[in-house]
């Protein structure tokens, strides 16, 4: 439009909205530095709308000057901003998008029966299409189209171990630029683990519109089954052969058990069971009990040590944590990959009874060794070991064949020491140093050199060993993805520290918005008191990632952290970086 009449519209030379940029706290920042009041989108979600055939915006030099003065930007595309899908400052409604049919007619699409999905039954979708964006002419048309998904392909595996997930919520993650496709995630909040605030995707499905006018049709299809979404967890190498632990129990008398167990089954393959009468100083060797005493199963061990030499690699591949569309409308799965490699050398510990080695044959399948201990053999038990381990771990976010985000770390441990049960004082002598190099922000070494542990405390020699553990408690050699906790990055956790107060290093993804995934290293320590620090490691967006660590934040803040990615300029805004921890941020 030319300036033919001196009218403002003619002078501006364009129709639409020139107001684009980042909205924070109800203020839109314009390129000329000015701020204007603007409705705040509730989240940082962004959905690109690009009407096919729309010409590139051309501005005269004079118009460019005026645009720069006014802070105007004229785009040949648009953004539906926030969960409410805000356009030109007006919300179109949650879970809605704009479909441009082959004739160029725009339609506002709305799934009328959005809500929880029963994954065991079929589901019919109804999409209401209302002609959109035409000013003038005949009244807007409305069309209703339907489609059905009969099999959600959610039968296996069950990611929650004992929890059966049969319902999920539908979350619209993105729409193609022409709106002919929208991708939805099936998400569940069941079985979420501690300190993991977000549900994970169990599957993805797509709604596709095609045709024009009265001939528009809807198709609904599962894109990824549950198995395809969760990916595969594969283990190569040899796990630790086992461990040795010692328990002591004070009741009517005092009992003590030495147990040699395999890592996999945690069953006793070689046990020595001792008792000492009250007020007596001598230990009595008992025959191998037919049934292991229940008390020692539940009590923390007085001493424990890993045993084994080898290497082990756990790898999670193909876990789809998000899906979005490219600028050309191609569906792009966003994949999480975790690799956790360990090499370790923990030799057979020296287990001695007082100064005499009585349990030297304590080994797998050799329960008969207990016969070497003489009755009325007084004294103390000592377990000595010197070993080392190295763990390397990496998390990657890959989309479209491109690594958007990668984080690696290494923990090297050398440990050695002797646990010596002095019967009464329970003095512990142990020296262990843990050196770990990680950009989690925890660097350096830590040593444990305690001379006295309170009752119920016990050192664990050789930590961190190959100790992928998912819950506090007894380290296990790692869980399969299908058995693991319910979260995005929860399948590979590294533990270090002493047994009763370990620190877990955990890599976690956080969905800040549909196009911004934040990656955090979490260092959680238990008790004394429980603390949890999140170390921001970077983010992944459709236009790339960032591996720069930015510091830590408290977990109580994290669920409120917002971020947004602009599908037009490819800018990224992280709320907490600009001091707007609790405020949503969003590009419009």
């Amino acid at each position, binding site marked *: *439009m*030319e300036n*033919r009449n001196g009218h403002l519209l003619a002078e501006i030379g*364009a*129709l*639409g*909205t020139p107001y684009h940029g980042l909205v924070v706290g109800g203020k839109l920042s314009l390129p000329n530095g000015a701020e204007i009041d603007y409705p705040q989108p509730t989240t940082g979600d962004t959905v690109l*709308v*690009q*009407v096919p*055939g*729309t010409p590139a*915006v051309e501005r005269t030099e004079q118009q460019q000057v005026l645009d720069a003065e006014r802070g105007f930007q*004229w*785009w*040949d*595309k*648009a953004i539906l901003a926030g969960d409410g899908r805000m*356009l030109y400052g007006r919300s179109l409604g949650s879970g809605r998008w*704009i479909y441009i049919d082959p004739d160029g007619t*725009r339609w506002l699409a709305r799934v009328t029966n959005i809500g929880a999905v029963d994954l065991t039954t079929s589901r019919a979708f109804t999409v209401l299409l209302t002609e*959109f*964006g*035409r*000013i*003038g*002419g005949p009244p807007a048309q409305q069309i209703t189209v339907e489609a059905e998904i009969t099999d959600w392909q959610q039968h296996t595996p069950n990611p929650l171990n004992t929890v059966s997930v049969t319902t999920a919520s539908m979350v619209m993650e993105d729409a193609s630029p022409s709106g002919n496709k929208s991708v939805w995630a099936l998400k569940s909040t069941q079985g979420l683990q501690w300190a993991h605030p977000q549900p994970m995707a169990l599957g993805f499905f797509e709604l596709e519109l095609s045709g024009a006018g009265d001939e528009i049709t809807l198709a609904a299809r599962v894109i990824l089954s549950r198995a395809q979404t969760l990916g595969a967890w594969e283990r190569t190498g040899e796990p630790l052969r086992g461990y040795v632990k010692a328990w002591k129990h004070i009741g009517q008398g005092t009992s003590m058990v030495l147990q040699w167990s395999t890592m996999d089954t945690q069953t006793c393959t070689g046990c020595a069971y001792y008792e000492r009468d009250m007020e007596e100083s001598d230990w009595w060797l008992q025959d191998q009990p037919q049934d292991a005493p229940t008390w020692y199963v539940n009590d923390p061990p007085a001493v424990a040590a890993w045993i084994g030499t080898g290497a082990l690699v756990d790898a999670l591949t193909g876990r789809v944590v998000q899906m979005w569309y490219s600028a050309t409308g191609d569906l792009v799965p966003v994949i999480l990959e975790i690799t956790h490699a360990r090499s370790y050398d923990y030799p057979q510990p020296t287990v001695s009874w007082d100064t005499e080695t009585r349990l030297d044959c304590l080994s797998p399948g050799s329960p008969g060794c207990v016969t070497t201990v003489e009755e009325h053999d007084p004294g103390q038990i000592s377990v000595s070991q010197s070993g080392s381990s190295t763990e390397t771990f990496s998390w990657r976010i890959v989309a479209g064949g491109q690594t958007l985000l990668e984080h690696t770390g290494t923990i090297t441990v050398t440990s050695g020491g002797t646990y010596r049960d002095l019967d009464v004082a329970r003095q512990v002598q142990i020296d262990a140093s843990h050196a770990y190099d990680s950009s989690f922000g925890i660097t350096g070494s830590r040593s444990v050199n305690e001379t006295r542990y309170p009752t119920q405390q016990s050192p664990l020699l050789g930590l961190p060993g190959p100790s992928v553990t998912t819950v506090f408690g007894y380290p296990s050699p790692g869980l399969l993805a299908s058995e693991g906790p319910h979260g995005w990055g929860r399948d590979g956790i590294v533990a270090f520290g002493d047994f009763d107060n370990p620190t877990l290093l955990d890599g976690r993804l956080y969905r800040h918005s549909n196009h911004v995934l934040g990656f955090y290293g979490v260092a959680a320590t238990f008790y004394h008191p429980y603390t949890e620090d999140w170390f921001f490691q970077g983010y992944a967006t459709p236009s790339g990632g960032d591996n720069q660590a930015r510091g830590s934040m408290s977990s109580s803040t994290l669920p409120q952290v917002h971020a947004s990615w602009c599908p037009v300029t490819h800018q990224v805004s992280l709320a907490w970086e600009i001091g707007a921890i609790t405020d949503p941020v969003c590009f419009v």
Partner: protein
Amino acid sequence: MATDKRLIEDLNSLVDIRPDRKLPETPMRGPLAPGRGYAAGDEPPTTQGGGIASPLIEPDISAREYYESRLFTSSDGIFTLEVAPIRQLLMADANGAEVVFQFAEPEP
């Protein structure tokens, strides 16, 4: 050159014959002589010629004529504004006479 000069002189000799001209007489200075003045009064509406009588009223909106409509589209292509430039308006003046407005077609 001499030939040209002669030609010019000949032409000048032809146009040099001029009539005897006198300037008009100028009126005497001073006030005008007294006399009766006249002014035009309210004239009755004329039925033809002579101009348009206000007000102009459009008797039938459906009689409007438009040029072919054109579409203004927002830069992002989402919104379209359909506008038909007006081509002709039929109005009636205070005498009931038809007044036709015909507009030029704007550039597309």
